[in-house]
């Protein structure tokens, strides 16, 4: 009897102790030509995978079975099996793929090819190229609307966010933003589209229905020249209440109120902070720091940096396993 009680107690204790959040993050290291795998229990790198030349865009498949990484100088996207943590296949992108995005269902992937001004459309089930979309010169940021009907593509040359109908694959609207738009992100409810401008130093808030800029977020950090503030990666919580914007060589992430669009605070992370991803429980946000070669872990609720993890050379993108 005692023993049974003790055992039951042990189980309960073990269950309580078992980390509710053992997440796995994959980081692409642009100069190191590797992908670092981070475990969120120990916040350490558990494996370094050799990949192709110049890995940048990186994302998990919706089912968590694969990680795709765009290796621009090899003109392809490599497929990593997350069980074996080895490269098992490639996807047919165009030349010099930098960034890609998938629709909410995880069926279609859109790849921005830096060199030939096109977006390649790939069917993820068959891993086959099903079409190309001609866009502005040098496609950069990409985002699919939550309903999957609109693909956003930002272009450095036109300084616009191009709205593309995913059914007809035609551009339906163009919205002018500030210089060198880099990244686009929708609020989960589809009410707002945010586009960061690296040289303009702003984030434009766009009404996706009216195709109008309705507001702009500016960043000011005392003691830093404005050209050192270069917004790139954006992360928004699912409820749309809090957003994080990576400010590149300002070495900071801005915490922004999702409703009022006011900057709440700046967090010093690492050098040249670039992209980011949340853990699925949204407790943590991980950001890549290209020059200091590390990843900062931000406690989302406390809005505080709690940890720094050394990864490979020039970390660029990051993706965290869905659960």
């Amino acid at each position: 009897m005692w023993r049974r009680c003790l055992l039951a107690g042990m189980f309960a204790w073990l269950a309580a102790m078992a980390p509710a959040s053992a997440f796995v993050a994959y980081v692409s290291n642009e100069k190191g030509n590797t992908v670092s795998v981070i475990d969120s229990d120990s916040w350490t790198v558990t494996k370094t995978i050799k990949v192709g030349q110049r890995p940048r865009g990186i994302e998990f498949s919706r089912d968590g079975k694969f990680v795709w990484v765009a290796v621009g100088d090899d003109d392809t996207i490599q497929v990593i099996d997350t069980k074996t943590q080895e490269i098992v296949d490639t996807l047919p992108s165009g030349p010099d793929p930098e960034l890609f995005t998938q629709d909410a269902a995880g069926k279609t992937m859109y790849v921005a090819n830096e060199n030939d001004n096109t977006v390649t459309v790939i069917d993820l089930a068959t891993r086959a190229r099903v079409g190309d979309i001609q866009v502005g010169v040098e496609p950069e940021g990409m985002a699919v609307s939550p309903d999957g009907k609109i693909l956003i593509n930002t272009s450095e040359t036109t300084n616009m966010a191009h709205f593309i109908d995913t059914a007809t694959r035609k551009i339906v609207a163009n919205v002018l933003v500030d210089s060198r738009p880099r990244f686009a992100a929708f609020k989960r409810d589809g009410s707002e589209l945010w586009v960061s401008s690296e040289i303009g130093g702003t984030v434009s808030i766009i009404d996706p229905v009216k195709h109008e800029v309705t507001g702009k977020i500016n960043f000011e950090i005392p003691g830093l020249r404005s050209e050192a503030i270069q917004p790139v990666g954006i992360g928004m919580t699912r409820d749309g209440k809090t957003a994080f914007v990576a400010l590149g060589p300002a070495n900071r992430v801005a915490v922004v109120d999702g409703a009022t669009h006011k900057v709440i605070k700046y967090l010093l992370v690492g050098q040249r902070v670039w992209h980011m991803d949340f853990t699925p429980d949204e407790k943590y946000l991980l950001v890549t720091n290209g020059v200091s070669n590390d990843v900062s872990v931000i406690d989302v609720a406390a809005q505080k940096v709690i940890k720094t993890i050394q990864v490979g050379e020039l970390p660029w993108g990051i993706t965290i396993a869905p659960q």
Partner: protein
Amino acid sequence: MITAWRIAIGAAFAVALSNQPARAADPRYPDWPCAQAKVPEISVAAVWAGPPLGDAANQWKDDPKINALVTKVAARRLPLEDAEKEIAGFLSAAAANKATAGKLLFAGLFDTLNAQRASVMNGLERVMRKQREAAEKIRSDTVALQALQDATPPDQAKVDELGNQLVWETRIFEDRRRVVKFVCEVPTTIDQRLFALSRAIQQELD
């Protein structure tokens, strides 16, 4: 023999032309030889989000303990991890004076590493100016050599002497170019160290 000089001449020309300072990416810094963008100095705000420095910016020099630690952890031969440990140990020993000690230490590292960085960058620009002079010299010597070779009859002794000189000038030029490429990485290495050490201090102050 003459063929060899001709090759050398060709090479010298190629080198001199490919190294035209016209490729300086930033018109503000015509002497900057690196592919990396020149950032003349690091601002405090780029590496520090801790408490305002106030008087610490000048006072760190008067504190011998801080001075010694700054010298020790700023040196690149000390592995970064060990330097971070030194900082953590020093600040936790400072107890009640932690905040002040942290500010003084940061101010010292900031001044010291920024100065190191400036001297490396000045050195790079000085070498670049020398390279430009060397390229000019190679160019004019090449023209002179060509004239000597075209003379009838050519003065073989002079041709050999000038040809030899050109080979040496080209070699020195090439060697310097390789070194410059390597040294161009140093300012970034210093940036990284300053940032990492500042972060270590701030973590202790949090």
